[in-house]
């Protein structure tokens, strides 16, 4: 299936929760969803016999300065097709359901998005920082992040 057909199929099932299709001028297309419906959509994407997305390639969080986006790239080994999902989150309190019960590989990807961008994944089994130490302050990949001058008595001056 191509992304357009997947969009039509999802639109039939989830209606308004799936945003209208926009054809990108260059590059990859994505399926834009309401963040509340993400988990249900993903369960369908994994289990439906016409979709069978068994592999979550990566989870990326993108800071658009007015909002934070989470992008999920999927691949199906069985049917050899791909898709990208996108949800928009409130920048002051980005929250979305964890997909670690759908694809266990999401566990570390989501921890990284939490660590770097401060996205809170609800029902994640172990949401801690992964690359930075636990007592680090702030989310470095946010556009307004200012690198600290000091950390636990170590300075970079």
């Amino acid at each position, binding site marked *: 299936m191509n992304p357009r057909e997947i969009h039509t199929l999802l639109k039939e099932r989830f209606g308004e929760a799936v945003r209208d299709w926009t054809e990108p001028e260059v590059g990859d297309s994505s399926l834009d969803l309401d963040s509340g419906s993400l988990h249900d959509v993903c369960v369908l994407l994994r289990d439906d016999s016409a979709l069978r997305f068994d592999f979550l390639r*990566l989870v990326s969080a993108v800071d658009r300065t007015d909002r934070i986006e989470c992008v999920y790239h999927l691949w199906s080994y069985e049917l050899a097709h791909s898709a990208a999902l996108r949800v928009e989150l409130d920048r002051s309190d980005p929250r979305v359901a964890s997909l670690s019960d759908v694809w266990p*590989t999401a566990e570390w990807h989501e921890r990284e998005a939490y660590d770097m961008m401060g996205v809170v994944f609800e029902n994640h089994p172990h949401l801690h920082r992964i690359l*930075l130490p636990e007592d680090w302050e702030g989310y470095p990949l946010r556009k307004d992040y200012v690198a600290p001058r000091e950390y636990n008595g170590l300075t970079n001056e």
Partner: protein
Amino acid sequence: MSEANVTETAPPASRRDSLRTEEMLLNMGPQHPSTHGVLRLVVRTDGEMVRESWPQIGFLHRCFEKIAESLPYAQALPYADRMDYLGSVNNGLAFCLGVEKLGAIEVSERAAHLRVIAAELNRIASHLIAFGTYALDLGAFTPFIYGFREREMAVSILEKLSGGRLLYHYPRIGGVANDLTPEIASDIRAFLVQMRKVWPEYNALLSDNQIFVKRTANVGVVTREQAIAWGFTGPCLRASGVRFDLRKDQPYSLYERFAFDVPIGEGTKGTTGDCWDRYWVRMVEILESCRIVEQALDGIPEGPVLTKVPRVLKLPKGEVYVPCENPRGELGFYIVSDGDPKALRIKSRGPSFCNLSIVNEICRDVLLADVVAILGSIDIVLGEVDR
């Protein structure tokens, strides 16, 4: 991190038996020689048995993604090279392919062939290190010397091509840095002859070695379902019986023109998806890479090697994700551009990071010595886990 922090990050131990010896929380690393870099593994042991193992990563975090946002694409490229320092050409290639796809930049056929040659030589060099260090992990020193003998030839060729011995910065946006010379071509042919000649020696030395087989067969078995669910890619995924290789299934850089086989694990010495299978898939891939290099060398057309790209490269507004088969699995860059000379976001999907996330799943209720065997068989490079 303090002791208190360890207990806080590791969940409570599973208590499956009623007859327990005293449990201990042990740190393997951050400098353990078998961790292939700076990895810390917190293991909860019960005598010789490991009940849980929690990888703690981030010691080599160099902020690649943050730096990449603050530099023009061409300047971010060498940082991508340095993520997985054993597969430098492959990393640079993945980054270039992403930028070229979004920017619709054409690459000449000659450059594409040179990329394939360099990438496959780098893959062989990387697999030779995997071969040598894996034996080293398990207590055999000699294979390491053998692996490095042949790797030296491959590295010298890459040095002549690019000027670097470890970090090549060879693929550039729009092509490659330098052209092939007749001298380098004959070096490559000599290397292929040598590699094929000594490959059976490697097997006599290690692959079929009784002790090695006993340490690796039926150890750390990852089923096909587990491998897919946990995002295994590359040789690890194929060892679990999934015949998937991006060079075949989503070809890039003219890989579709070359004939090669994709080896998978078949449980030859034990169970499909065990440590021996992961090791063996890499060994067979060395030969397959030789085949690809040979064909690319035979079929290389004349032409320029670098397309002219604007000094200030502005990619159109959009985004792209291009996956690429690195020696360790699927490496891809998700590039988001808003039309500036610098990317809005570059996210890298590294195979070592994802392959490592399965450790706690398979290092449960195994012998402590097997943890080393399992970790070595996954063949991680911490530079790319932490980025």
